[in-house]
C-alpha cells in the first residue's frame, strides 16, 4: 500500500463522511447561526480535500484555490455576522 492508495481509500472517504455529517447539521440546524457555522466548516473541509487531491493528481497548482477558498470562508462568516446583528437591531 503506497501513499496514493492510502490517501485514496482511507483519507478521502473519512473527509467525505465528515462533510456529510456537517451537511446533516446544515439542514437540521435550529437557528441561522448553526447554518453559518456549518457552512464555514464545510469550506474548511473543502480546503483539506483540495490539499489531498493535489497530492493525488500530482498538481500543486490546486493549492492556490485553497487560499481563495479560505478568503471566501472568512469574508462570508464576517458578512453574515455583521448583517445578522444589524437585522436584529432594526426590528
Amino acid at each position: 500500500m503506497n501513499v496514493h492508495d492510502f490517501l485514496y481509500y482511507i483519507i478521502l472517504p473519512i473527509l467525505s463522511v465528515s462533510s456529510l455529517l456537517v451537511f446533516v447539521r446544515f439542514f437540521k440546524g435550529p437557528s441561522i447561526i448553526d447554518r453559518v457555522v456549518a457552512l464555514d466548516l464545510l469550506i474548511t473541509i473543502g480546503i483539506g480535500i483540495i490539499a489531498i487531491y493535489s497530492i493525488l493528481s500530482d498538481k500543486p497548482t490546486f493549492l492556490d484555490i485553497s487560499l481563495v477558498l479560505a478568503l471566501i470562508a472568512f469574508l462570508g462568516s464576517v458578512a453574515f455576522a455583521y448583517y445578522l446583528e444589524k437585522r436584529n437591531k432594526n426590528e
Partner: protein
Amino acid sequence: MNDILVYITSGLGALFVLLAAIGTLRMPDQYLRISVNTKAATLGVGLLLTAAALFFLDLSVTTRVIAVIIFIFITAPVSAHLIGRTSYFIGNKLWENSYIDDLKGKYNKSTHELKGINQREDNEEETEEKS
C-alpha cells in the same frame, strides 16, 4: 521516511476533521459547536496541508502551504468570535447545563456598552442630580 511523515500527518488531520464534524453534529449548544469548529477543524486542515507540503518537498509549494496555514490560523478565531458575539446579541440561550454567563445583566444590547460597577454608580449619581 518522507512517506511515513505523509501517512502520519494526513491520518491525524483526517481524524481531527472527523472529530470536528461529529462535534458539530452532536454538541448541544451553538457556542460549544463554534468552539469545536474553530479548534479541531483548524488543526485538522493545517495537518492536511502540511501533508501536501511534505509530499511535494518544493519551495514554492511549501511557501503557499505556509501562507494558507497562517491565514487560517489568523482568521478562524476572528470569525468564530464574531459569530459567537452575534449569536449572543440575537438572544440565543446557553445550554441548560452551562451555568457561567459573565455578561448576564452587565451588557446593554442596543448600545453595545459594558456596564461596569463604577459606571453604574455614575449613572445613579447623575439621575439623583437630575431629580
